[in-house]
């Protein structure tokens, strides 16, 4: 098996990027990644695109060649990967496997989504397609509703509080306030988060990630580099909430994490920082538990203690996370890699963490039916 490194990363800002289409966003992210790699784009042998639902959001299908063409890469195999909110992570996972296996030496992964410009109801309808159409979408189980059901059960089972959910939002908004590429850069208080407009009890607007546009790109290579992909694992679980044994944990994340730690030969305690999938505040708490950073049911108090802040024992979502950095679905998993690489290289400015040797990303699809866990290590 070949060792896999990251040659370069690049992304657009995340937010409401009016007047800018998929092609332009993807092109900007890929040009930035190619520029950061400082290598000839003709070395790229394939383009893997992470995208959830461009056909519904924009009417555009057949994204592979569209995205490849945006970076002047016509001719190479170019394919779209879809795994709901884990589409970007899944594209990365398949690129890493291809390079490891020696199929390609250089693959450019680009995640992109153009979500704004639709009504809230239409966005909710499109997003509901990431769940079970028969048993969830048909009943009006929007994604906030699904994660509200998860949050309510976590609160009932472990005593997790609304204040602990709000603490996730406050931390991630604080981090995003220092990230010039973030969608929501407003600092908020616990009181504001608690008083947010109700979306699906117990979740308010401040528990939910925004609807964003954006793109991110990562050049994956078998050539040595400053950052090594020491593990990348994808796993699946039941699609419908009703079919899960437990709804306060995501089996797919536990499986992917177990494989990733095995691949890397590491324990959770060796991870120094993480970018995790906080599509809703409860998702960050569950990620902490599923990734083995804290025991089940203890994540709320842990976040409230400040342990996951930039100066904490395990900084989590220093980018602002999906919650405040933004969540252009197909771009999210690739963007997490960009953010982690920035930290490992010591380029995160005001948000820079002290320990920056090993970091982890976790990208979740649907209500935990797909999860991708990646571990990166600084080599120099």
């Amino acid at each position, binding site marked *: 098996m070949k060792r896999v490194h990251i040659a370069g990363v690049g992304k657009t800002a995340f937010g409401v990027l009016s007047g800018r289409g998929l092609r332009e966003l993807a092109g900007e992210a890929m040009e930035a990644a190619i520029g950061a790699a400082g290598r000839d784009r003709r070395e790229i042998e394939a383009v893997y695109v992470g995208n959830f639902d461009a056909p519904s959001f924009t009417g555009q299908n057949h994204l592979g060649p569209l995205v490849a063409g945006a970076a002047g890469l016509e001719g190479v195999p170019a394919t779209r990967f879809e795994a709901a909110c884990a589409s970007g992570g899944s594209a990365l996972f398949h690129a890493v496997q291809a390079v490891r296996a020696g199929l390609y030496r250089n693959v450019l992964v680009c995640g992109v989504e153009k979500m704004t410009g639709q009504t809230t109801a239409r966005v909710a309808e499109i997003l509901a397609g990431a769940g079970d159409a028969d048993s969830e979408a*048909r*009943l009006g189980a929007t994604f906030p509703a699904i994660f509200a059901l998860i949050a309510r059960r976590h609160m009932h089972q472990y005593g997790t509080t609304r204040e602990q959910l709000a603490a996730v939002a406050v931390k991630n908004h604080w981090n995003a306030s220092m990230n010039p590429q973030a969608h929501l850069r407003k600092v908020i208080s616990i009181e504001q988060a608690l008083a947010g407009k109700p979306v699906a*009890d117990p979740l308010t607007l401040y528990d939910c990630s925004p609807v964003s546009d954006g793109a991110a790109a990562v050049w994956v290579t078998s050539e040595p580099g400053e950052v090594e992909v020491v593990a990348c694992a994808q796993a699946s679980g039941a699609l419908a*909430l*009703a079919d899960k044994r437990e709804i306060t944990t995501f089996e797919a994340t536990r499986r992917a994490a177990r494989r990733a730690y095995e691949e890397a030969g590491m324990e959770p305690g060796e991870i120094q920082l993480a970018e995790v999938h906080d599509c809703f505040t409860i998702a960050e708490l569950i990620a902490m538990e599923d990734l083995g950073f804290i025991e089940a049911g203890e994540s709320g108090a842990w976040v409230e203690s400040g342990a996951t802040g930039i100066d904490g024992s395990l900084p989590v979502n220093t980018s602002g996370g999906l919650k405040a950095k933004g969540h252009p679905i197909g771009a999210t998993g690739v963007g997490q890699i960009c953010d982690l690489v920035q930290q490992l290289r010591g380029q995160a400015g005001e948000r820079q963490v002290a320990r920056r040797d090993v970091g982890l990303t976790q990208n979740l699809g649907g209500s935990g039916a797909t999860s991708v866990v990646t571990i990166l290590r600084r080599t120099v």
Partner: protein
Amino acid sequence: MMREGIVWSETVVHGMGEPYQLALVELQGGGRRLLVRVRGERAEVGERVRERESASEYPEFEVSK
């Protein structure tokens, strides 16, 4: 046959027209769960609910009295 069960989790959804309640119900006899709409009085976690007659295409439950 009308089904009965215990509410495993629940939420009230806002901003999509009139607020409505969804509940994940653990069905009596077998432990299988089902996502349902709850009509009438709000059902809390742990509360007993039963299916009600409905013309809708999805299952509707209500709090058992």
